[in-house]
């Protein structure tokens, strides 16, 4: 770990000003991902600005419905929040499916969105990685890719986004509130993470010095009956092979509205727009769910190691939507 200066921020504007002014500075909040990366030598900041004690730790109801979630709200507290449990169970379930109790007590909302891929080669400084070291190549292309993405990949990067929380949030049309030196702006979460393309090192639309201060979730009545399902290599405490976040509104056997997002398969939290379009107005049947998943996955480009994710994603989408449809008609 390269030596670094440490400052604890007392106000958000000051934190933004400090990091903006110093190209070698980074924000740290819970640190569960950053400290890991400091130890591995993946990042070598010279200055850390600790934003974990900024007064951004509240979950509040927005006027007109929906929630505003402060950026430093801990994952455990967000999952347990009564309004989240009641209005957006998919978000509680996604949070609780992630990491462990200890990590969820520390990891923050903003940090979760910014957590970086668990690609084994990204995490090994002796491996070529276009994300860590632009232009160095991609060791994963000739390596082990069981956990890699099948959607949104490029010839430069296959790394999957690891968050569970973000998958639920992207299904819920969340917006990220960002504070920069010139003030606040909002970005739809769906467009917050970039596809790797030929610049996998550019992971989000944030500029250096910009700080996530909140995530806002609009009202969505059907989200009261929403679900998150995570398929993984352990029953708990493991990253997703495939995960599915969904909310479904069915009336008289017809899909009126649906939100569907995928984890473990995308280079970013994957909003399944193609599948959603295929579903709306059609029958709420297993066959239709499978067909919609197939349509979404038509663009997939798997490796030998992770080709199983195509049928696994399809099966999981069918299982989740069938479960929600069953609840609807019960």
């Amino acid at each position, binding site marked *: 770990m390269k030596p670094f200066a440490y400052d604890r921020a007392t106000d958000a504007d000051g934190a933004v000003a400090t990091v903006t002014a110093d190209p070698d500075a980074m924000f740290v909040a819970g640190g569960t991902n950053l400290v890991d990366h400091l*130890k591995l030598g993946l990042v070598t900041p010279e200055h850390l600005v600790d934003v974990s004690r900024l007064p951004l730790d509240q979950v509040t109801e927005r006027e007109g419905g929906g929630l505003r979630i402060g950026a430093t709200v801990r994952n455990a507290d967000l999952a347990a929040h009564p309004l989240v449990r009641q209005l957006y169970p998919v978000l509680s379930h996604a949070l609780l499916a992630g990491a462990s109790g200890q990590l969820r007590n520390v990891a923050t909302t903003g940090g979760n969105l910014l957590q970086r891929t668990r690609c084994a080669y990204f995490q090994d400084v002796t491996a070529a990685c276009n994300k860590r070291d632009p232009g160095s190549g991609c060791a994963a292309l000739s390596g082990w890719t069981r956990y890699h993405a099948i959607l949104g990949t490029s010839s430069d990067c296959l790394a999957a986004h690891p968050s569970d929380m973000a998958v639920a949030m992207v299904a819920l049309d969340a917006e990220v509130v960002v504070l920069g030196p010139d003030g606040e702006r909002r970005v739809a979460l769906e467009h917050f993470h970039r596809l790797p393309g030929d610049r996998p090192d550019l992971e989000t639309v944030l500029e250096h010095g910009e700080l996530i201060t909140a995530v806002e979730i609009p009202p969505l009545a059907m989200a009261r009956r929403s679900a998150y399902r995570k398929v993984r290599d352990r029953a708990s405490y493991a990253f997703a092979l495939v995960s599915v976040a969904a909310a479904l509104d069915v009336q008289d056997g017809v899909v009126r509205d649906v939100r569907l997002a995928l984890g473990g398969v995308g280079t970013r939290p994957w909003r399944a727009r193609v599948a959603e379009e295929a579903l709306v107005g059609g029958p709420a049947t297993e066959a239709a769910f499978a067909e919609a998943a197939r349509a979404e996955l038509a663009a997939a480009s798997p490796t030998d190691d992770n080709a199983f994710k195509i049928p696994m994603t399809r099966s999981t989408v069918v299982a989740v939507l069938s479960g929600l449809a069953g609840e609807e008609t019960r």
Partner: protein
Amino acid sequence: MEADLTWRVDGVEHTLAVDTRTTVLDALRDRLGNTSPKKGCDHGQCGACTVLVDGRRQLSCLGLAVAHDGSEITTAAGLVDGDELHPVQQAFVDHDGLQCGYCTPGQVCSAVGMLDEVKAGHPSAVSDDLEADVELDEDEIRERMSGNLCRCGAYSNIVAAIEEAARA
């Protein structure tokens, strides 16, 4: 680079200058000689370093010590009350919920923190109804304790110990 840090560890206040790079775990083990929290992976992947920070279970390997100025840290060594083990510790002893002992202090701290989370009504990934009261059955304990790996495979006895401690 060094920074000053004042915190309470197992009830005793300490002020020390630490390298900003030093984790809570390394500060406890290498600086204070409190080796109750264990280093199993150093990357948040095993749970052996679990301590209570201001009453909540956390992984000490992923926290920077300097960020914990003013914190109250409790390790498994600090859970005892005089000669008396904490009820969770006593239940681990009674159920042989340990073998090599290396994951054990982390399991104990995690269980203590977990039981408080249950009391606060926090749901888990296996809670079917997010809005119902938590019934702490074996499946709930297993899910909530899954951040604490035990390679000796003492899981069955650990779960039995926690069940007993939860009833007490």
